[in-house]
């Protein structure tokens, strides 16, 4: 109620509703929120059922460490909503946090970046979730387009630009020209699959079970996509499956490289597929300019080198790749006000 009135007291925001992290960009302020997409729920039937205990970084610290009546869940999976209720609650919390405590609850215009491969049902769920969180108007934009604009690619030119956004749940590759997507593909491979691959590798080769948080730490510290001259090591702890007791062991970067081969080949395959499907003129432009990497996956060591070797094209990593999508969304929101219809917001 009174959303339009409350809108005068709200800032328009761009949300990168990611599987791993949610980022919010506010006009003239930049990235104001970067928190994990995790919600902790307490289930106590005697006290009115399920209640939300924590959201974001606080909830992430509870992942895998909760007692029976508390569950830490990630409401987003593969780039789309897995749990509508908790996504809405999480968005509500983030929007409120961005606007602070005010007399009138915030009701901003919200642009949400969605994976290119998401279905209409998934898009509608995201839209309704944002509306339920208090947004007075919700626009959706494809993540590759937002990533390209956020990375600073000249997408408005009649020349091809290729962007590869490796997120937590999906990897999106797109060829963009004249503010439109010429070709795009979305593979449901991302940072989560890397973590999963590491967990499986350790269980298979060491007979030790490690948690997702440990796997993520291994990936960030010694993970690599291409063999390097230097071999790095890390000492981690997990539960020995045969003995049932915690054990410490050491992993090196070559082992992690081996563990990550499967998801990495999936991403390389998607890029090669995109290059095959790109019209020749635009393909030539891409060969001249190179492929720009964005998203948290771009921070994996030597992933640019891997793609360079596999495709034979120059590969660049955008500056601050983690925030490209959110920043691009914010820029698109501004441009759409100045030039309505330029990006075809839904």
């Amino acid at each position, binding site marked *: 109620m009174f959303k339009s009135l409350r809108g005068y007291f709200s800032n328009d925001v761009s949300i990168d509703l990611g599987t791993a992290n949610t980022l919010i960009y506010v006009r003239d302020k930049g990235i104001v929120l970067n928190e994990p997409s995790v919600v902790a729920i307490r289930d106590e039937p005697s006290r009115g059922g399920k209640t939300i205990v924590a959201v974001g970084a606080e909830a992430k610290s509870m992942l895998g460490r909760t007692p029976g009546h508390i569950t830490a869940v990630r409401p987003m999976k593969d780039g789309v909503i897995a749990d509508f209720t908790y996504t809405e609650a999480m968005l509500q919390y983030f929007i409120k946090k961005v606007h602070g405590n005010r007399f009138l609850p915030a009701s901003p215009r919200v642009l949400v970046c969605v994976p290119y491969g998401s279905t209409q049902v998934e898009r509608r769920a995201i839209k309704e979730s944002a509306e339920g969180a208090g947004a007075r108007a919700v626009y959706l934009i494809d993540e590759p387009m937002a990533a390209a604009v956020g990375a600073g*690619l000249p997408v408005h030119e009649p020349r091809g630009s290729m962007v590869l956004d490796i997120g937590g749940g999906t990897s999106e590759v797109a060829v963009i020209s004249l503010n439109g997507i010429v070709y795009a593909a979305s593979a449901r491979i991302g940072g989560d699959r890397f973590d999963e691959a590491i967990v499986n590798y350790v269980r298979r080769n060491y007979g030790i079970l490690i948690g997702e948080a440990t796997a993520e730490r291994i990936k960030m510290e010694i993970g690599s996509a291409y063999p390097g001259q230097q071999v790095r090591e890390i000492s981690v702890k997990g539960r020995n499956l045969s003995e049932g007791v915690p054990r410490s062991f050491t992993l090196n970067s070559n082992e992690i490289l081996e563990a990550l081969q499967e998801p990495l080949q999936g991403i390389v395959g998607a890029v090669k597929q995109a290059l095959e499907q790109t019209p020749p003129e635009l393909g030539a432009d891409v060969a001249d300019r190179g492929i720009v990497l964005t998203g948290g996956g771009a921070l994996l060591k030597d992933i640019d080198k891997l793609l*360079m070797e596999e495709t034979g094209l120059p590969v*660049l990593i955008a500056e601050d790749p983690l925030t490209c999508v959110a920043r691009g969304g914010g820029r698109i929101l501004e441009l759409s006000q100045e*030039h309505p219809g330029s990006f075809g917001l839904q």
Partner: protein
Amino acid sequence: MTQGEELVETSSSQAVSTVTVLPVLTPPGGRLRAARELQGLPLDQVVSALRVEKKLLEAMEANRFEVFDAPVYARGYLRQYAKFLGLSVEDMLAEFDGLSSLPVAPTHVPLTSAAPAFRDWSGVKTAAKFALLLLAVLGSLFWWRGHNVNPVSVAVPVAARVVASPVDGPVPMPAKDPVADSANSADTPSAGGPPAGAVDAPSLSPVSSGATPAQPTANPLANPAANAPAEPSVESGSMAVPSVVDAALGAKTQSSVAAGLVIDVRGDSWVGVFSSTGERQVYGMQHAGQSRTISGRGPWRVVLGKADRVRVTFNGQQVTAGPEYRRGDLVSYHIDATGRVY
């Protein structure tokens, strides 16, 4: 001393020694070239390692970064080249930012901007919304004030409620302004005649006598007889009563209405009016043009043979019976002292 530090020192010393000969060695391009030459790397080897066109590498070494389409490419290739040569990426980017000939950042203005300029109405819309909001608030304030003023100052409705009307004898009149009273006394009949009724509100009306002084603002509904032609016969008790001026309101002219039950016959019809005791007040065939007035408070029972030809008024207000009291042309109902039909 590390290898990186040695490299930086060597390259800077070389740049100083050849600064007059090779101006291209100014950073960051000069440092790139110096580092590459120091490592003995031919440009073709860098091309094959970075998959970058040779002309772009040469442009970078000559600080001609404007050949790139956008800063993202210039900075991206510079970062890669520096990383490949083992130079500090941050230092190189800082030197790059200090250059004057930088590629222009994309504005993302769509090609359709050549179309007629979009006029931004958002400011006007915002102002209009605030103006409407302000009007609504002011309107609410006025409305609130209008409903909270002293009730004495509010005009009393014309159709006032009848509270008492004794059949016989004088009725105490409400207090009147002496001036107004004396002004009206010339037109007022003798006090011996019983008035048709007294009202608690200053709306006191005579019966259709045709002579109704001091009724300049008479409501047609409240005083239908005033608009009707002069009636020939008047029952006892019906008389002209002047309008009463309310002393509290000060010269507030009120309308006059017919008192008691008045039956105007427009066409031949059988009419019966019975008192509460069953006494016949009117009974028999009445002819067109006749008018009968029954004073008193009622209740009465009224029976009309041809209801459409007879008009019944009580204290100046027309009595209308609903269809539930009608059987064909005949209408039969009761009317009480407040004019309620039942």
